[in-house]
């Protein structure tokens, strides 16, 4: 593998990793607070992409307006899911998992009659290529990195610098104690759903102009996000960021050097070895 190829695959890996991070952040946030795995995350990613297809491509709105709208709409949908599914189940982990799995199936199945059976596409928002360290990288790939980075920083500031973020951290540490201190657990849980869904929507909205769109498009990113949160440590936001970058780089560099199959296998071997060394993942802690 030449140095140029290494640089090119590393930059591509960073952009793939950025998407993985966005997907994993929402998942890990919801797991950290409520100990639930949101199986609907992939379907929300798909809905985020289709929101861009309609609002930006079909109706002609500016891309970033469509992007923000997708996050807001699906964030509101997340809040609604918390109110209508999670809260009535009273936070039961297993029933919530099954209910979210059912929601995923419903959204995917509804996708075909609603969006059509043929793959959709969205025209590129950023075109052309840029020379990065002597190799050509597409601008649309490069732009994922700062946009995802900005969202990660925004999430960090929200969680660490706002009262609602402090309430989320309090619930993560001890739900009962947080409630005794006056935190409205239901509202904050709803907020976590909204933020998690909005991040998944952002990932889908970012990828819409790069890949094709179909109702099942969220399955692969969801699988990657699961791997990442296990790698980084369930419930850990720094772990999701580091895990996303590691997996993105493995997916790109190893796949370029050895092929896609070895890269896929290696990512699992890496996780198994890591979990043997640290059963809670890179930044996780015992539940």
């Amino acid at each position, binding site marked *: 593998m*030449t140095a140029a*190829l290494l640089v*090119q*695959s590393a930059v*591509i890996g960073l952009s*793939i990793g950025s998407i993985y991070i966005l997907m994993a952040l929402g998942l890990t946030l919801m797991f950290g607070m409520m100990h639930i795995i949101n199986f609907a995350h992939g379907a929300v990613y798909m809905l985020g992409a289709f929101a861009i297809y309609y609002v930006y491509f079909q109706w002609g709105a500016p891309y970033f307006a469509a992007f923000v709208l997708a996050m807001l709409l699906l964030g509101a949908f997340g809040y609604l899911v918390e109110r209508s599914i999670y809260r009535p189940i009273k936070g039961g982990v297993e029933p919530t998992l099954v209910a979210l799995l059912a929601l995923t199936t419903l959204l995917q199945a509804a996708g*075909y009659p609603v969006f059509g*059976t*043929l*793959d959709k*596409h969205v025209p*590129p928002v950023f075109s052309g*290529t840029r020379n990065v360290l002597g190799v*050509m990288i*597409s601008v*649309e*790939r490069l732009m994922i990195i700062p946009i995802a980075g900005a969202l990660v920083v925004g999430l960090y500031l929200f969680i660490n610098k706002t009262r609602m973020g402090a309430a989320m951290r309090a619930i993560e540490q001890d739900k009962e104690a947080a409630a005794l201190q006056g935190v409205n657990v239901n509202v904050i849980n709803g907020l976590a759903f909204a933020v998690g869904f909005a991040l998944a929507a952002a990932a889908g909205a970012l990828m819409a102009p790069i*890949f*094709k769109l*179909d*109702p*099942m*498009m969220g*399955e*692969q990113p969801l699988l990657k996000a699961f791997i990442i949160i296990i790698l980084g440590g369930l419930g850990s936001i720094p772990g999701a960021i580091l895990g996303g970058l590691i997996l993105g780089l493995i*997916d*790109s*560099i190893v*796949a*370029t*050097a050895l*092929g*896609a*199959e070895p*890269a896929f296998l290696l990512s699992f071997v890496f996780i198994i070895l890591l979990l043997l060394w640290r059963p809670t993942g890179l930044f996780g802690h015992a539940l």
Partner: protein
Amino acid sequence: MKQSTPFTLVGLLAAVLLGSSPGAEAADVIKFGVSTPLSGPAAPWGIPHKGATELIFDEINSQGGLEVGGKKYKLEVVAYDHKYVIAEGAATVNRLIAKDSVKFISILGGTVVKAVEETVNESRVLNLPLAYADGLVSPRNPYTFHSFPSPPETVTFWNWIKQHHPNIKRVASITPNDDTGWWSLKVETKYVATLGYEVVAREFFERVVTDFNPLLLRVLAQKPDIISVLAAPAGSVGLIIKQARVLGYKGRFIHIGQMDTSVVAGIAGKENVEGTWVHGYVQTPLPEKVKNWQARYTKKHGEWNATSIDFANPAFAFVAAVKKAQSLDPKRIAEALSTVEFENLWGKAHFGGKDYYGIGNQIIYPMPFSEVKDGVAHLVAQLSPPHN
């Protein structure tokens, strides 16, 4: 009155059940099963597969039906979506055979058709698939008549390329990582090697993959003149072409399977698909017979789909064989298929290829080969397979 209600309900139920039982209609209807992807990445193949079959059958029905042994039968398509997923494919075929009692079937997709090979054989169901799979056309499958040109037939286009574009020397192949892809790649690379081409890369991808960059970086490092995307669905090819162009690839693409180049252009961009060669998908110039088909297909389905041209083969072959056999026995229709010559939309067609496959169950006809120019698939040649 009060007591009569349950009896009335029972009577109604009995009438409904009797009326809807298979036996009540089977005497006048020939059911033809279609198991095909009507959703997902391979839907651009499945939708015209179903649409073409329905059109041919509707036209025969409008003339009173298909005459067999002095009796007119209506033709009915029973179609299910298998999404190009093996498990779904097996379920749809089992349902067609066990529940819908079909004796004639057309399955699209190599991995699916291989998964149900034994079921089809044991049930003695006549199968007219559109599928690429090693060993599908074989003496082991006497009731399977492959109704679309396979790689052993379509490799003949490489002769045309060698003759008309001698500057192309280095070939890379990217195919799905399944039975269909492996076989297609094996057949194609073996053939191009005999023509003197250098096969510089062979890569497989999972059908769910959307990011081809790592794979393409490996392929492009070998500096191919042409990339073959044989057996890949249009959605995947669109992404491969788009991402390869972004990475700086200037060469050609070829698909000697079949794909809708308008779907590809929608994803990859019209300019990026320029010069792509494809078998079995033609937009212009269309022969009169195909133009006429285009008008009829558009009238029935609301929009034109050029993939329907070659995917009409199973229905054309089936109707011709039933007419010749004058029987609804799959065995007798299979015997008729072995010898019948019939018209498809490109001319005379028959089942042959015994020298290559050991059984003459592969459709043979002058196959269309197109080049995308300004976003439109132009017919550049019609060629016969290397074997008859």
